[in-house]
């Protein structure tokens, strides 16, 4: 199989990310998170970023590195309770420093990303009906039952983690590292994969590959 070499150093891989970009970052409380790409993006210093994440990590780890460096303008997350820096940034005295934090039910964020990656115009759910999560959303009745219309989420970039990937970017996951990673890989224009281990094409049993490498633009070891 003849393929383009996708393997890059982390700095090279994130060099395409400019100010104002939207980035999906996989991981659940830092498990299955491409920390090496986050570190490289902190070094690059891109600003006014929109991050789409499961949670806000812990102080000093994961997406907090980007938050603390003042690189994030908008955070779309399911849960931010593990990181007190988020509340501080949301209530920052200087308006220009303030973080916009949009909270979305975790299942809804996952399904919106899936819709974004897989060509769906949205989906209907009862989750969030009668709550602040329904604010500004259309409701649709199906067979007499009321649902919220949730719209697809897409992004410019995605940081994907896999436990093992081959040189085409086919990824496999161990344990609970999978979380949003396979969904996000499909929903961004440019997905970068960080793999703990990189192997030759054909070395991962096709039965065990979860993320097809066609979604992956570049691969970083780490």
């Amino acid at each position, binding site marked *: 199989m003849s393929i383009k070499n996708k393997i890059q150093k982390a700095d090279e891989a994130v060099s395409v990310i400019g100010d104002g970009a939207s980035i999906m970052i996989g991981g*659940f*409380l*830092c*498990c*299955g998170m491409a920390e090496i790409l986050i570190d490289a993006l902190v070094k690059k210093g891109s600003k006014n970023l929109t991050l789409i994440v*499961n*949670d806000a990590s*812990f102080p000093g780890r994961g997406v907090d590195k980007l938050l603390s460096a003042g690189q994030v303008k908008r955070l779309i*997350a*399911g*849960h*931010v*309770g*593990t990181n007190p820096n988020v*509340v501080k940034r*949301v209530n920052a005295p200087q308006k220009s420093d303030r973080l916009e*934090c949009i*909270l979305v*039910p*975790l*299942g*809804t*964020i*996952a*399904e919106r990303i*899936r819709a974004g990656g897989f060509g769906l115009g949205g989906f209907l*759910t*009862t*989750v*969030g*009906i*009668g*709550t*602040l*999560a329904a604010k500004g959303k259309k409701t649709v009745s199906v067979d007499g039952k009321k649902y919220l219309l949730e719209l697809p989420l897409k992004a410019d970039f995605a940081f994907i983690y896999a*436990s093992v990937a081959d040189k085409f970017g086919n990824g496999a*996951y*161990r*344990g*609970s*590292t*999978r*979380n*949003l*990673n*396979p*969904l996000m890989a499909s929903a961004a224009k440019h997905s970068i994969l960080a793999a703990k281990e990189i192997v030759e094409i054909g070395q991962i049993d096709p039965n065990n590959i*979860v993320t097809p490498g066609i979604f992956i633009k570049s691969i970083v070891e780490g």
Partner: protein
Amino acid sequence: MKDPKEIIAARAAKELKDGEIVNLGIGLPTMVADYLPEGSNIVLQSENGILNMGVSAKEGEEDFEIINAGGKCVTVKSGAVFTDSAVSFGIIRGGHVDTTVLGALEVDEKGNLSNWIIPNVLMPGMGGAMDLAAGANKVIVTMLHSQKGKPKIVKKCSLPYTALKVVNLIVTEMAVIEVVREGLLLKEINPDYTLQEVKKLTGARLIISPNL
């Protein structure tokens, strides 16, 4: 006297039946797992993508690629399954979770639940709570009966809702209360407390069970 949270966790554990698929929320609900009877056959679902989760990992034996939804290293039982978030929440929303145990800031007499935000004070986010409250077949709330003398079981929640009309059972250190069509049915009182004490710290009308 025992830690009230231990009393709550031990009592809530008795509500879980063998063979059930159960999701335990973060914090006090997680403690319920420690009180399940030895050899019980309950399938624990963790929203970060584990079915058939086991006990916490021993120190020195942690696998950092296997965590629970609270970020702690855990083990998995034989027959466990790892899934992505779409499958995990599909299981939850699709009604495949029999029972969820959740913490709460407030529960009201209609079974409405508030547990994700105190505006301008605390905004942890709903995490998976809205999905669980809306999707699980049975919602058990475990919480302290009151907060600094202020009832948490109220006529109408004052905090933003997590979900409407979803709570089936409330387990506190003082009492076990079922949400029924007519309101709140007081089913059990911890013998360390009197009915008067329970009523005093409850902000809604209680229907006293004839079996009490």
